[in-house]
């Protein structure tokens, strides 16, 4: 009996991936507790509650066969796009940006839906045209990608727009867009930088400038980076020990339980900790890439590859920003940062990955 229940819950769960995820999530809760000065369980409890919901979502996603996702791709994308247009027209302004849509009973951030909808719809599109991809198909894919990215960038939420763009781009890249086109796109991308610069908001430009020289504005935009690098650097090789990070606990590091949680982690666990963290991420990513490589359909392999590469992007961008080699964009450290929404969309992604990993016999047959 117990064996059958366990089998019901574990049948679609990928063991190695789940193990790595579990370690990362446990590490996250440990550091969230520490980021509150070791004095409050509030955020640990809230995060645990989100975790239960997210794990349930993972299980559901893992049990949804890829064919069902294939059918749902377009509707999800269309709903997401409609919501984004709704935000642009009727959205609530919070912190100077129009990102939230009030549905009466709850507020949602449609850009979160797009994090999954964009790779889904692109994988669906390339799957439909698998019998011979032409340049025209890549053009259509680019339009499908550009619509939500443009709307999100206008909110403005440059960080999320870039990440969603990346997730879509990974699908296009993995689908085999020719190198000529890729190089051409890269070149025109570089050429359009001055134009993009002129489109940016002042604070966004400031962030980029601050990256180049954080000391330029030590009490303003550079403050985050200066404080987080001090915290990480002062941790040394072995760290100051759990709950002993003075910088982070004395509130020098802002947003220390969300986007800048790596500063707390790096200070308390040192280089040893950061290397362990990178290794864990590599395990997750490596397992994801393996699943993608072994997936049996175009849709499944493109989706699995995109989900994995997007996860990598999150981890890299966050660690890069907190350690001062990338501009500050609002990206959480995947599976570690406090925040339920990010955890939810992340685990749904891994659920899809697991579904792809465990459903391939059914698909191919």
């Amino acid at each position: 009996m117990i064996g059958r229940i366990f089998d019901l819950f574990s049948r679609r769960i990928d063991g190695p991936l789940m193990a790595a995820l579990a370690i990362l999530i446990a590490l996250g809760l440990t550091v969230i507790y520490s980021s509150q000065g070791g004095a409050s369980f509030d955020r640990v409890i809230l995060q645990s509650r989100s975790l239960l919901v997210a794990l349930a979502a993972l299980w559901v996603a893992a049990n949804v066969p890829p064919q069902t996702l294939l059918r749902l791709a377009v509707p999800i994308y269309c709903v997401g796009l409609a919501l984004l247009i709704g935000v642009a027209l009727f959205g609530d302004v919070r912190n100077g940006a129009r990102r939230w849509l009030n549905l009466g009973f709850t507020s949602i951030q449609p850009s979160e839906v797009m994090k999954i909808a964009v790779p889904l719809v692109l994988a669906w599109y390339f799957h439909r045209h698998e019998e011979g991809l032409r340049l025209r198909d890549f053009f259509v894919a680019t339009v499908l990608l550009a619509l939500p990215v443009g709307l999100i960038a206008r909110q403005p939420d440059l960080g999320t727009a870039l990440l969603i763009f990346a997730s879509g781009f990974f699908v296009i890249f993995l689908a085999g867009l020719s190198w000529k086109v890729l190089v051409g796109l890269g070149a025109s991308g570089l050429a359009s930088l001055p134009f993009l610069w002129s489109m940016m908001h002042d604070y966004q430009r400031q962030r980029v400038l601050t990256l180049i020289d954080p000391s330029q504005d030590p009490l303003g935009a550079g403050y985050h980076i200066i404080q987080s690098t001090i915290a990480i650097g002062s941790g040394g090789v072995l760290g100051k020990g759990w709950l002993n990070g003075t910088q982070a606990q004395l509130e020098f590091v802002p947003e220390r339980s969300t986007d800048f949680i790596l500063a707390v982690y790096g200070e308390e666990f040192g280089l040893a900790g950061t290397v362990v963290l990178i290794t864990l991420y590599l395990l997750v990513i490596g397992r994801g890439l393996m699943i993608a490589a072994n997936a049996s359909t175009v849709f499944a392999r493109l989706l699995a590859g995109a989900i994995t590469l997007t996860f990598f992007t999150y981890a890299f961008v966050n660690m890069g920003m907190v350690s001062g080699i990338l501009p500050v964009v609002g990206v959480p450290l995947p599976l570690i940062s406090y925040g339920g929404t990010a955890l939810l969309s992340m685990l749904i992604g891994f659920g899809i990955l697991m579904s792809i990993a465990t459903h391939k016999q059914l698909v191919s047959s």
Partner: protein
Amino acid sequence: MMLGQALRDQQRELVVFRNRLLLAGFGILAAFGILATRFAWLQVVQKDHYHTLAEANRISVVPVVPNRGIITDRNGEILAANFSAYTLEITPGRVANVERAIDELAEVIEVTPRDRRRFRKLQEESKNFESLPIRTRLSEEEVARFAVNRFRFPGFEIKARLFRSYPQGEVASHAIGYIGRINEPDVKRIEAQGLATNYKGTDHIGKLGLEGAYEKELHGLTGSEQVEIDAGGRAIRALSRNEPISGNNLQVTLDLQLQKVAEEAFQDYRGALVAIDPKTGDVLALVSKPGFDPNLFVDGIDPVNWDALNNSPDKPLNNRALRGQYPPGSTIKPFLALAALEYKKRTPEFAISDPGFFTLPGVAHRYRDHKVGGHGSVNLHKAVVVSCDTYFYGLSNDLGIDNIHRFMTQFGFGARTGIDIEGELTGIQPSTEWKWQRFKQKWYSGDTISVGIGQGYWLTTPMQLAAATATLANDGVVVHPRLLKAVQDSKTQEVKALHQPMGERLPFKPEHLALIKNAMIDVTKPGGTAARAGAGAPYTIAAKTGTAQVIGMKQGEKYDEKKVKEVHRDHAIFIAYAPAEDPKIALALLVENGGHGGSTAAPIAREVFDFHLLGKRPAKRQKLGDDEPGEVPPPPQ
């Protein structure tokens, strides 16, 4: 065929996909490699650097400002004290719109127009990140009301601070001085003296008077506290503390009660009075009227009060006792008479017949006496008693300006007395050399004649005149006036009295001194110019009246007090000491535009003497100068 093509396509696609996945894998490894290198750089290579930064970030050394020493008078009455109160301070750099924030604050606690004016003035003078008081001395209720609303006011902070208070208000304000916020010149001076460290955290400094002169004694030594702070700069806990050492307490020579009597005796007149104990040089009273309330300066003076003080025609900020330079008038006649005796230009017996004027041989100009028709036969004694100008015209002409200069310099005229507060002016003790230096002109005999009655180029400060009077009262032992009597060490509570050495004894013949002093005693007797000052006194007063011209009179023009604008009226001057036989107090006083010395100045001196010698407070006062005969000529002898 079709199927095979499709399969081949799919196969090719899978190869492309796997190749690209592999490429992505290498990209990911490279990216994480960069990250790992970055972490290693931060956490291994730069570890010490960041560790130092982290400590600096976390531990802040906060200065602990010492308590300022208090100032008491010679009897222990408090002239300057401290009290602790709450202030509400704003750091303008942390507030987006200061004016609007203050408007909002005004809804919570009272903010007067004066508070705003003062804050604006402070803001102009201060750096943006300095914390500046908007309200001082908050009540407990106001503190509570602000605390409830504090989330609305970032950049605002309640601080408990020590305030200076001057419980005597305007009394003795020129001697005590005041403290004010440290400004740019103060900072430069502090840095030049190498005291910058000791002034960390201190935002007030003594500006004038005793507060300024004894700043170093009063300030004490700044302590420090190592505190662990959070990013908001809030102290979490103190790690170690190096206690500050309070400033020393000062006991000054002033007698507060005497000071009050003297100041009140001036009524509404402007003027100055310096009373000295001739045996010690202790300044018993130092009056400059009008005064100002030093309390106005403590939290930073607001522009309206500042303009009122600074632009008042009465110049309340001007310390007339030290900085007022006036012609001494007839008050220098006793000194000149002594000079004539010492230089053997006159004998006590020598007498002139005073026609009411003096002429230099071969010059038509008549130097008039204040008494039309003259004083008749006048010897040296009578010349002092009746203040005979004619006698002194001739006397000074015979002495010559350089003898006068040499003699008077011994009494301290033309030089600072060295009183231990700053700002004293020297006055002018003219000489041929001085005139040449100053005007590139030679000295004329006529110049000497004017000097002979304390006019012309001669200018003196009330402080100088008081010190000279005290020296005369002290039989020629030079008196150096001073205000600091004793210092109480804040640590040991030990009181260290300061004994200022008396000056040299000037080599006057005792019989000459006796003659001059007798004449000065007779000045306060019936027939003398200050007869009323001495009337009914149970002790003897030696004195001399004087009048200092404010505007010159043309030849033949008659000075009529009623016709002259108040500000052009003569200054009344008076020097005196008592008891004449054993002087305990010597003073000089000046009433600006007070007319003749006998009518307005002498009664003030009498009240001061009565209080100091008899402990008698003045009865209800008559208006100064009313029904007074002025310099009444004595009946012909």
